[in-house]
């Protein structure tokens, strides 16, 4: 199996370069991450971030043959060779395939990703009806891997001002939560030229989401919530 991998060690390299590798995958190497970890045995300087190895933690999001995805849930047999691996586009590179997620999480924190409810705490828990709970489906599953935000042209041009698809999907998750009491503040916070309305509905986000979520739909729902609240 042939791979071409982005390499950059800022302590040693003046500029990034692509390094070619050839490796014979074992029968147990079903996912791309298995192959990368086998490569790492050959060349321990190769750097990647990973943790759960089953598409839950979102650590190993990289650009695979031009498309963002999680190495741990990308079957090797689906890949066209040479497999070109790069770090997430537009994110600052720390080393090789590892990127700096600081700005991404800053945008995520800006939408206040927690329930806001000043009402007295009930004895046990804040209840939801099954229908209210269902509203969170397709939103709460986001693992914050950044595949969507890194593939979004609007985020490329204004990463410091546009919240990005991942942050907006999370915003919608709290806007529709029946237990949250800050819906109006959340909607108002996104109503300016940048935070939500840089979205051009390009829909790369929905196209690449490894969890098959639809941030573009969440963004549309926020726009509708804004229209409703302005009436």
């Amino acid at each position, binding site marked *: 199996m042939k791979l071409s991998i982005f390499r950059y060690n800022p302590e040693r390299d003046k500029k990034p370069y692509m390094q070619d590798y050839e490796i014979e995958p074992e029968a147990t190497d079903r996912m791309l991450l298995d192959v990368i970890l086998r490569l790492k045995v050959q060349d321990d300087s190769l750097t990647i971030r990973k943790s759960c190895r089953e598409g839950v933690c979102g650590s190993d999001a990289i650009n695979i043959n031009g498309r963002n995805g999680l190495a741990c849930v990308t079957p090797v047999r689906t890949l066209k060779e040479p497999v070109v691996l790069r770090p997430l586009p537009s994110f600052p590179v720390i080393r090789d395939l590892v990127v700096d997620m600081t700005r991404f999480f800053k945008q995520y924190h800006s939408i206040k990703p927690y329930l806001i409810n000043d009402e007295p705490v009930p004895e046990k828990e804040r209840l939801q009806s099954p229908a209210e709970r269902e509203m969170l489906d397709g939103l709460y599953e986001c693992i914050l891997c950044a595949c969507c935000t890194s593939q979004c042209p*609007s985020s490329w*041009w*204004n990463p410091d001002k546009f919240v990005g698809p991942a942050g907006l999907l999370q915003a919608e998750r709290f806007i529709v939560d029946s237990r949250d009491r800050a819906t109006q503040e959340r909607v108002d916070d996104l*109503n*300016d*030229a*940048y935070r*939500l*309305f*840089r979205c*051009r509905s390009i829909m790369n986000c929905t196209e690449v989401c490894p969890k098959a979520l639809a941030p573009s739909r969440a963004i549309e729902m926020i*726009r509708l919530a*804004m*229209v409703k609240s*302005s009436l």
Partner: protein
Amino acid sequence: MVVTGLRAWLVQRASAVYLLCYIVFVLVHILLDPPTSYRAWREWASHPGVGIASAVFFAALLAHMWVGLRDVIIDYVHPIAVRATVLALLALGLTGIGAWVLRILWLSIG
């Protein structure tokens, strides 16, 4: 009134719907009842109803262009001075087009 965020988005969407309806209206008219001469075409175009619909069409078109092009400029032109200059030039250009449209519509009625 600041036209940004939701307002700008609504202007863009509402104007798009009107632009589509007007274009369909004109195309259907041309297909069903094609004007036989320039005179017939002018007569149809100078009908008060059609004249108002055309005036609204160009107003919607200019509003649509302003929001769309302003978005592109905000996306790509980041230095504030350059952005302000480009936006001013765009506003000037669109105002010029608007004035030209008004003149044509005015003459067609007269």
